[in-house]
């Protein structure tokens, strides 16, 4: 089991690490070559981007930079999501699997439960993305550089926030679609093969499986997928909001790593709450359209709650940026 987990973890990390290593090596090699060549200063012409031609060159270059970063984020996000979702399809069935009514039911359960558990991962991923978006706007040389170039503060803000948010949402959606396609390709539309009632075969010791199955039957796959997207949006906006809040005032960026420590507790706390969720907390999560455990789907209209909250958070963060000392 342990060996299996570490193997799958390796499979997961391999392309990311390989891509990162390749990128860093090519950068280092280019730098070493440049240092050796010592060419005179002849700037390379700006990349032509037909779609962005209407923008002033300062904004175009800034936007292009961020689209590049967003592209990588999109790829990592899509890969990760697809990996997490399809992981149960390739793992050896756990001890309980023979108690499930048929293989389709067990696969479908694994797939869906993987989706609801992936939320924990998003929290970490989104937290770091949020910090990576907001901190370079407030602290350090990069913040001062862009704050002293002739581009509007609003343009900097929206470019950074929207490029990352869009990349994450699009990446997550792509990952889900990919995982779903793999599931269908390997096993066909298994969700049509679920027995509609709980068979009597199970003994009194198996009430947990029965409960899980009951939960699975009422769970809506659409809602779970939608919930992933709204949760990413909500949590990212929250991080951006808190990160821009004037309470956070540092005289130097030396204290930045310290900031990460309390911030890392947030997702941890949420995960713990979700596992020990009773009626009260799950109601809270339902309202925010956060789908952490199997069960009946929150009404679709609730999806608007996190979106509205996210909009408020981001607008608030935008207002804060106007008055920040950098």
């Amino acid at each position, binding site marked *: 089991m342990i060996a299996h987990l570490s193997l799958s973890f390796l499979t997961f990390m391999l392309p990311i690490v390989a891509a990162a290593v390749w990128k860093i090596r090519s950068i280092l090699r280019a*730098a070493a070559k*440049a*240092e050796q*060549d*010592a*060419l*005179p*200063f*002849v*700037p*390379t012409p*700006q990349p032509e981007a037909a779609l962005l031609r209407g923008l*002033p*060159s*300062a904004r*175009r*270059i800034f936007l292009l930079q961020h689209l590049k970063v967003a592209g990588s984020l999109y790829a990592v996000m899509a890969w990760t999501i697809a990996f997490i979702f399809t992981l149960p399809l390739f793992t050896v069935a756990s001890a309980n699997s023979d108690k499930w009514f048929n293989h389709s039911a067990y696969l479908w359960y694994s797939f869906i439960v993987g989706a609801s558990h992936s939320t924990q991962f998003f929290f970490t991923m989104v937290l770091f993305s949020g910090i990576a978006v907001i901190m370079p706007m407030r602290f350090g*040389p*990069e913040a*001062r*550089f862009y*704050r*002293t*170039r*002739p*581009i*509007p*503060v*609003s343009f900097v803000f929206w470019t950074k926030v929207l490029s990352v948010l869009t990349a994450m949402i699009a990446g997550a959606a792509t990952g889900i679609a990919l995982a779903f396609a793999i599931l269908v390709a390997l096993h066909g539309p298994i969700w049509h093969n679920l027995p509609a009632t709980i068979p009597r075969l199970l003994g009194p010791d198996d009430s947990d499986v029965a409960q899980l199955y009951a939960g699975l039957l009422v769970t809506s796959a659409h809602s779970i997928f939608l919930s992933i997207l709204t949760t990413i949006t909500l949590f990212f906006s929250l991080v951006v909001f808190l990160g821009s809040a004037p309470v956070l005032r540092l*005289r130097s960026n030396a204290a930045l790593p310290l900031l990460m420590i309390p911030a890392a507790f947030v997702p941890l706390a949420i995960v713990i709450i979700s596992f020990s969720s009773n009626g009260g907390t799950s109601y809270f999560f339902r309202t925010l359209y956060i789908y952490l455990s199997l069960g009946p789907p929150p009404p679709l209209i609730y999806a608007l709650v996190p979106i509205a909250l996210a909009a408020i958070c981001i607008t608030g963060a935008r207002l804060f940026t*106007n*008055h920040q*000392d*950098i």
Partner: protein
Amino acid sequence: MTTYAIQTNALVKTYSLGNKKTHAVDGLNLNVSEGSIYGLLGRNSAGKTTTIRMAMGLAHPTSGDIKVFGLNPARDPERIDVLRQVGYVPEDKMLAALSARKLLELNRNFYPETWSDDLARKVIKRLELPLDTAFMKLSLGNKTKSALACAIAQRSRLLILDEPTTGLDPIALDELLRLLVEDCTAEGRTIFLSTHQLAEIEQIADHIGIMDRGRILLEGPLDDIRSSFRRLTVTGAALPTSHPGILSTRRQAHATQYILQSAPEAFAQDLIANGATIVESNPMSLNEIFLELCRTSESTAADREEEFA
């Protein structure tokens, strides 16, 4: 009407750390006229960097206001008009963690109307700036040069340099002064620089502001300041102790030394008319003027604190 590149009016900036409030800038009135090379002098933590940060829109005034070319540098869209016309070398010299070439290539995109590749090459050559050394390996002096090359090649209407000589060796410093005079002053362009190194500023500046504890102690054309300050050593009886022109008086064994800050000739003639003998009358260097002003300001500040105590 004279236009001002930078003008502040009762500018105040306070920082609160815990319960303690620090007045980094405390009622500053500054007038930097266009076409001048203005040297803002002051000791460490006199408020120079805070003032510059407010001029660049990086910090917001607590009260009072600061205008760059008559515009508010902290609020879009005026801010954009300001920044389009300003080149900036920050105190820590770190514009972005990039090699000089990358930084220059990035920066030129922001100033398509004024940027000059030729001038960039000239600065690189004159300052002997290594283009491809990784940022982490750059010495402090080379970081300074990198930031300077960016700002100078922008050919902006106003150049704001916060301690632009940090880490430069004497040759690089000399080349910098030459570049500033040769390429950054034509067509009525303005240089505003802060420093506590007086010698270099004394050479190229034509306007001086001396700052201490967030206030301006003295501001004006450097030649006027030089001609209005004088050190007189006088012997005689019944020497005056108060006169509007006296900055400080020091009694020695047989003579009295006056530091005068305005109309020294008139004062000297008064003394002679009253029977005193002027033993020595020396003009003062900027360095001496600066030291004298800071000491006087310190002692009056101490007096003020005693009064409150």
